[in-house]
């Protein structure tokens, strides 16, 4: 009885369709060399952009051939190094075809973030963020408005504009750091106040010496509030070129 049950079950659930003759089978093998992982190169573009609605007008604008207004492509300025082996901060001044094509898309999304650099250190911020810097800005008093102009990344939900990676300094040249064009964005921060750490007391003494010196430390930190993060549109950016 058990055996019969097993054979019945096998008959019901195991389907073994008979293959057609070889000459009727398709030529393609069942094997594939396509990777199905979710790396950026593998995911087809419509799927990457699927979460983002692009209006018909925007699509038309993107697909139109690039027309560079006069003065948009100045020659890449060869930064004259004041001293050899000095660190070079190269701020982009060019409107590349890539920016021309994708800046409208970046601008059309509502929320943006920036990776600002203060004294070479990066901070990823968006509007309304409070940044407690790990140092005190001696020249910025509470109530001052700062304009931040060194940025390496401008991003939104689906797009990111990145500056090239920094190049390590070698025997022949100093460190090269690349930043995005200042005219692409506006970032303002207000100095909200100055915080301090809890007081630390360090005891300094020597062996077989009764006197103990107490050194107190209270370090101060500047607190900024990012009041404005704005990414310019392509038209506004092109106008900046016409100004210069």
């Amino acid at each position, binding site marked *: 009885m058990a055996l019969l049950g097993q054979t019945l079950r096998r008959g019901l659930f195991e389907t073994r369709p008979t293959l057609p003759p070889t000459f009727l089978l398709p030529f393609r093998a069942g094997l594939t060399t396509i990777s199905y992982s979710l790396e950026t190169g593998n995911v087809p573009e419509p799927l990457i952009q699927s979460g983002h609605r692009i209006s018909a007008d925007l699509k038309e604008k993107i697909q139109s051939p690039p027309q560079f207004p006069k003065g948009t492509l100045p020659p890449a300025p060869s930064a004259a190094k*004041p001293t050899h082996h000095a*660190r070079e901060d190269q701020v982009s001044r060019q409107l590349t075809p890539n920016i021309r094509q994708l800046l409208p898309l970046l601008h059309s999304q509502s929320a943006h973030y920036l990776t600002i650099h203060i*004294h070479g250190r990066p901070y990823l911020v968006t509007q309304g963020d409070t940044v407690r810097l790990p140092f005190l800005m001696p020249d910025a008093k509470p109530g001052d408005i700062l*304009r931040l102009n*060194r940025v390496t990344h401008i991003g939104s939900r689906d797009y990111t504009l990145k500056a090239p990676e920094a190049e390590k300094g070698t025997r022949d040249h100093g460190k090269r750091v690349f930043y995005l064009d200042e005219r692409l964005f506006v970032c303002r921060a207000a100095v909200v106040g100055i915080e301090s750490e809890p007081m630390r007391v360090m005891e300094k003494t020597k062996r077989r010496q009764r006197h103990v010196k107490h050194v107190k430390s209270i370090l101060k930190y500047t607190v900024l509030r990012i009041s404005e993060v704005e990414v310019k549109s392509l038209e506004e950016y092109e106008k900046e070129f016409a100004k210069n």
Partner: protein
Amino acid sequence: MPYFRITLMRSGIGLPEKTQGVLKALGLRKRMTTVYHPVTSSVAGQIMRIKELVDVKEVGTALNKKQMREARRPAPGYYVERRGTAELEPPQ
């Protein structure tokens, strides 16, 4: 006037006193210290004594310590657009 830009790449610990004396004379205290000396035969001879420890380049001008530090300083990344006290000033 051309200068040698000399950077100590390898430490002189464990080396003979005379060799360490050359490092001291050139002003190379620690690894990665960089000094500038004018191009003369005597300095060239000193470099030849410690040529395995050192990286040398010929440049046009000499920099002092302060200038070297300033050359490495990154851009501040901000400027003060408006002072908090600006509102208190009477309109002009």
